[in-house]
């Protein structure tokens, strides 16, 4: 089982906090879609022995694509790869693109899951982050989408300067009122070289407050867990059977193919990533060149990645898997390193799996780093 990720590197306007790869000029859209199709062809042998179980259109803003363009790309995948019986096919969408007619058409297409970038239902937050949609569009799109789709995920951002706990609680309640089965939620993060970073430096926007963000994260967990959501990955909450199959593959070390500029791929041994530039990407693909860089993982790299991703999920780090995949000395090392965290009640072992406690959840990066093996 494996997944295909397709990166659509276009947006109507730039959100202040975003450091993903995108362009606000749509001039090269046609050329790019053809390049995506050609990359799929060029890389068809990479998944020779595996069925494609998930397809994910991410971005950028994939909802900028027309239905026929989406259909064309899905058809291309079917042409070159073996796709499973009931694949999960997700489209990331922005509220301002989800008109009544667009939602209706999407419902007719093979897309069976929407991941909607709501971020907040409050106008002030949306303005501050320079989102393309307004609060009315946020509400209206949910009303429409829930009529036609049952598998919907929405994104919500907390820790926004000026966002009170009460307002945050209200955002969560609004989402719950639409009976959304999956929520991805992140703290607003100030990424280097973003507009947000510049505005904070200049004092135009207040800096993010870690303590406030942490409180809001608590509110989120408590509220969603009270509504039968499973906190299955650090930033992801889903009701039973609604976990993101595509994203879970990332955290479980399964292979995936990333198509398009800046997309990353993983085949079990190597990670590779395409160039982060639309023109260079198109030019190379047109000349039959895959514009990617590759890194081969060592056993230690793989171990470190497994620790890092494992601790973020409810599946935890399997001690048997560590012993089996990396060797007994890795398992011994892991247990030795984990001991002090277990004593501090930040980690626990359940059924031969190493997991973070509730308190440990917030510290899992630091803990993972301590459990890492490094060669000095």
């Amino acid at each position, binding site marked *: 089982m494996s997944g295909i990720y397709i990166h659509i590197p276009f947006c109507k306007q730039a959100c202040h906090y975003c450091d993903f790869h995108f362009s606000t000029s749509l001039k090269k859209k046609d050329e790019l879609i053809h390049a995506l199709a050609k990359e799929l062809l060029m890389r068809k042998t990479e998944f020779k022995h595996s069925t494609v179980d998930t397809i994910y259109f991410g971005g950028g803003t994939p909802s900028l694509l027309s239905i026929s363009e989406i259909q064309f790309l899905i058809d291309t995948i079917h042409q070159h790869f073996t796709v499973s019986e009931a694949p999960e096919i997700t489209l990331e969408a922005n509220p301002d693109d989800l008109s009544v007619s667009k939602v209706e058409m999407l419902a007719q297409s093979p897309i069976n899951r929407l991941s909607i970038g709501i971020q907040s239902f409050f106008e002030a937050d949306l303005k501050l982050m320079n989102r393309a949609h307004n609060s009315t569009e946020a509400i209206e799109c949910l009303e429409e989408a829930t009529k036609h789709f049952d598998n919907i995920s929405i994104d919500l951002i907390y820790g926004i300067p000026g966002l009170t706990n009460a307002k945050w609680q209200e955002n969560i309640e609004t989402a719950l009122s639409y009976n959304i089965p999956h929520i991805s939620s992140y703290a607003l993060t100030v990424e280097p070289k973003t507009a947000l970073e510049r505005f904070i430096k200049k004092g135009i926007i207040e800096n993010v407050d870690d303590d406030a963000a942490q409180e809001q994260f608590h509110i989120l967990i408590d509220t969603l867990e009270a509504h039968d959501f499973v906190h299955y990955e650090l930033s992801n909450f889903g009701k039973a059977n609604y976990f993101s199959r595509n994203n879970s593959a990332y955290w479980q070390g399964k292979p995936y193919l990333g198509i398009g500029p800046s997309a990353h791929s993983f085949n079990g041994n190597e990670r590779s990533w395409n160039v982060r530039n639309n023109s260079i990407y198109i030019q190379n693909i047109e000349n039959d060149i895959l514009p990617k860089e590759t890194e081969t993982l060592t056993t230690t790299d793989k171990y470190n990645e497994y620790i*890092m991703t494992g601790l973020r999920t409810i599946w935890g780090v399997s001690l048997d898997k560590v012993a089996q995949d990396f060797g007994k000395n890795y398992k011994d090392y892991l247990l030795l390193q984990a001991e002090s965290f277990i004593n501090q009640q930040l980690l626990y072992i359940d059924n031969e799996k190493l997991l973070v406690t509730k308190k440990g959840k917030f510290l899992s990066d630091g803990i993972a780093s301590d459990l890492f093996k490094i060669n000095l």
Partner: protein
Amino acid sequence: MKHIRNFCIIAHIDHGKSTLADRLLDFTGAVTAREKQDQLLDSMDLERERGITIKSHAIQMEYTYEGQEYVLNLIDTPGHVDFSYEVSRSIAACEGALLIVDAAQSIQAQTISNLYLALENDLEIIPVLNKVDLPSANPEEVTDDIVDLLGCDPEEVIHASGKTGFGVDNILKAIIERVPAPKGDPEAPLQALIFDSVYNTFRGIETYFRVFNGEIKKGQKIKFVATDKEYYADEVGTLKLNQVPKKSVKAGDVGYLITGIKTAKEVKVGDTITDFANPTTNIVEGFEDVKPMVFAGIYPVDTEDYEELRASMEKLQLNDASLVFQPESSAALGFGFRCGFLGMLHMEIIQERLEREFDMTVITTVPNVSYHAYTNKNPDEAFIVNNPSDLPEPTTINRVEEPFIKATIITKADFVGNVMSLCIEKRGMIMNQTYLTPERVELTFEMPLAEIVFDFYDRLKTVSKGYASFDYSPIGMKVSKLVRLDILLNAQTVDALSALIHADNAHTIGKKMCEKLKELIPRQQFDIPIQAAIGAKIISRETIKALRKDVTAKCYGGDISRKRKLLEKQKKGKKRMRQVGNVEIPQQAFMAVLKLND
């Protein structure tokens, strides 16, 4: 002997000494094109990188002038106040000195004090105005400065450029014509001055010397006067870029000696070499046992590396006799060594060499000077305190003395106010103020050496915008009102962070220490109180808030590799931290007291 010239170079750091030396070697053909590299005489990587000379070096050149063959011995000297004794011995080995002055920056304090040393030793001074090709050069004014200082004729100042090689022929001419040939009696008993030694892994210690009288022959039984030890001269020779073995090195010349000595301690710079059977009655004056000025603890980051650290320090001592150390233990850091250094630069160099050459990650504790404590019980007997923890109980102390220095600072007139405020803040007393020129002022202070150890250089640089040079010499011990400032982390005293401080400054420094440590110690999973205390009295407090969340939000396909690398880097950083109690302290926090004003 009349065709030998021995000379050294006096220059301030960055005035182009090493580059000009390279040009001299080129010009006389001492170096082939294949052997050429920048700063040829600076053999340690560290010297080349920092652009400073740490060890003394010597090299012999041959030069034909007006049909006569001359042998020119250049003794290159260290350019930092930490090594002023070595400089004085190199000067004593010469008859002449090139005084190199940057045509843009003019004369600096260090240069002047070395120049006085050279004049005291009756050296012929050849002033050289270097970097005359720079657009910022100001040859007229700087020549005036030199003339004022030396009382020489403006025509005697040679214009040169180490970069282009301009003026090198004139320098060589001046060396031959103006530096006197060595005097000495080739028939007298052997009398030679040791001016440096170098450790060679295969051959042991190579001793560099200058013969004043007699000669030193291969196979001769010799004696070192100060250490009173006897050796056989297994090999003697002169120093070209490579060593050239000779049957003997005669009066007036400079050379090297190999005796199979394995440790640098046995070869003391300034010592006299003489013949065992027929010793000279005339030892070379000026020998001193070099005393360390600054002390600090050096501890392995990982306690298990103690023995390895000991072995590394012993090896380092083989080629750096001025490093002294003895085992000590700290409640916070476990087993380590109390080390004595010539100064702050020397301390940094040792720490860096341990890391580079021996791959040891170490923690260096707050440096301090050597104090004399007198107890009420025994008010006439000094108890030497090289570690703040050794200071006796405050109630039992009669008085404490600390070393004072005479500090000389040369700066631009514009900065006199700033420099004075700094020195006064550092407990300095102004002794003298002289206008060398209308723009350049020489200030003399008496101040505690301990204040130089604490962030003085950096601050001097800042307040003078880089236009101040500094030199010092010890002037003895004086009584001071000193207290021990302790730092508590999580209610536990961390002895490695204790410092002796003047009582009047203790509150300010205690407060700054707490603030600085709060900045340097990363947040951990619990609150960490930081307190500064004098005895049982807490004078300042800060808290490092517990880290409750360190996890970043998203981690999708594209983030995994980047995030893994980030966390690996974090782990590497932690490996360099030291666990004290349950608090992890990064290396640089132990030096926090030196960075209070950053």
